[in-house]
Structure formats: structure tokens, C-alpha cells
């Protein structure tokens, strides 16, 4: 991943994200609702920071994104899953400060630990962790995300 990139929190994006989770609560789209005003403006669903992928320059899971230059390599080891055998194993968030529409977040990621395990369903499993911090325009840490991806040797038996 790039060292860091900017992620503007846009009202339409928040509405679309909430809608994709079948959540029509006004705190995610209506600035005039009393419950929104009580929260100081439109807030974001707990997993909303995932949509920073749209702004990540080298995001690997969007093969048809128009780009200048060659597409990023398939790493398949990011916490978002990866193409082919990659799956998302775990996702953890810590919430430090509210995110509101209009914020501009700076997103910074670093790799965490890597480990191996013999799996019951998919042969040898290779786990890798990545830690991402989302800071707002005032430099305040809003969310820390820890994502664990797993690569399997064969498709997971169902």
C-alpha cells in the first residue's frame, strides 16, 4: 500500500454504504433529522472506512479501475481477501473519535504479523495482518483497523 492517502468522507458515499447494509437510519443520510443533529451531523456506519478502497491508489481488488501506468501486482495477501485463494479471516476496529461527513481522513497502513497454520478446510493456511489508521483533518486518530487475511492452498470446502 502507498504510505498514506487522503479519503474525503462524502455524504453520497455514506448514504450508499449504509444502503448496501440495508440501513436507512437518518443519521447516515439526513442532516436535518433530530437524531443526526444530536450527533453533530451525519455519521458513518461502523465498517464505513472500508470504502477508503476507492481512494487507495494501489488498491489491488479493482482490476478494471482506469489507471495511468500498469495495474498494481496481485498480492492476494491483503486483509481485504485477495484474488483467487485469498479470504478475509478477521476484521477488528477500535473507534477513538467520531467521523462525520465533510471530514477528510488520512489513511496510513502498515503490515502486521504473518503466521502459518494447518487448516481443516483448505490445507495449509497463510495468515497476514495489516493495521490501518484513519486520522481526520485535525490530525485526530478516529479509527484503527486490524485486518487479517488468509491464503489457502485450495478452495475452502463447503
Amino acid at each position, binding site marked *: 500500500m502507498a504510505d498514506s492517502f487522503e479519503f474525503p468522507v462524502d455524504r453520497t*458515499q455514506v448514504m*450508499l*454504504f449504509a*444502503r*448496501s*447494509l*440495508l*440501513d436507512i*437510519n437518518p*443519521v447516515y443520510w439526513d442532516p436535518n433529522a433530530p*437524531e443526526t443533529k444530536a*450527533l453533530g451531523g451525519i*455519521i458513518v*456506519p*461502523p*465498517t464505513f472506512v*472500508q*470504502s*477508503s*478502497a*476507492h481512494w*487507495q491508489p494501489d*488498491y489491488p*481488488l*479493482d*482490476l*478494471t*479501475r482506469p489507471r495511468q501506468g500498469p495495474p498494481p501486482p496481485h498480492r492476494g495477501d491483503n486483509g*481485504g*481477501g*485477495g*484474488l*483467487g*485463494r485469498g*479470504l*478475509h*479471516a*478477521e*476484521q*477488528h*476496529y*477500535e*473507534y477513538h473519535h*467520531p467521523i462525520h461527513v465533510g471530514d477528510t481522513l488520512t489513511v496510513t497502513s502498515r503490515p502486521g504479523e504473518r503466521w502459518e497454520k494447518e487448516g481443516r478446510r483448505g490445507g495449509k493456511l497463510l495468515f497476514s495482518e495489516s493495521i490501518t489508521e484513519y486520522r481526520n483533518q485535525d490530525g485526530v486518530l478516529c479509527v484503527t483497523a*486490524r485486518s487479517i487475511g488468509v491464503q489457502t492452498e*485450495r*478452495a*475452502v470446502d*463447503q
Partner: protein
Amino acid sequence: MAFKVGDKHEAVVIENVVRTHIVKYAGASGDFNPLHHDDTAAKGLAGYPSVFAHGMLSMGLTGRMVTDWLGKGNLKKYGVRFTKQVWPGDTLTAKGEVTNVADAGNGKQLVTVKLVTVNQAGESVVEGEAVAEV
């Protein structure tokens, strides 16, 4: 509303997953991994029977139950493990149980809930925990 250990809540968070649900989440999140929208790729590239939902869709839907129950904008932590894939046709029920209540020190409660989301066969697809200041 005061929470106490043992309090439970559950909700059907999605009925009959269709590909349109999955595609809508792909568009909103930006995760265009073909495994989640391209049956040909899911079968050919990876040997799956069809596309399946993003784990993060299940986590997001489970999070909706949590924020409907514990309130919007007050989560401190939320984490899950993805235990099984979610396929077109599935119906998911998210269940929570309060496992700890502490004094947040500001007149509020720090409420910890254990979470499990199950499919129509009762198999867990997501297991996790959340902490909210209520």
C-alpha cells in the same frame, strides 16, 4: 436504558441474499474482487460453486443489529472472525448477548456484547465482540 449481563437481542439482518445485494456492497465498498460478482471467475479461478458475499457485508449487516440495539455513534470496539461463507439464497440472523457491563466513569455504561450471526441452517458465519459506551 440500563444494560445488564445476560441481556440478549437478535434480528434478521438480511433475507434471501441475491447477487444484487452483493454487487451493491461491492460498489459501495470498492471491493471488486471477482469472487464476489463474477460466477465464471468464482468457479473457474477458485473452484467455488458460485459467487459468495464479502465477509465485510456480513460484518456490516451484523453491525447494523449492534447499532440498532446499543445506539448509533457510541461503539468503542467492534471485531469479528469470518467462520463460513455466505451464499446467494442465505438468510442471516445476528444475535448478541451482553457479557460485561462496566462504569464508563462519565455516567455511562461500557457494555460488552458477544456476537454471532447464523445462516438459515444455524451455522455461524460471523463471530465477534463489540464494546459500546451507552
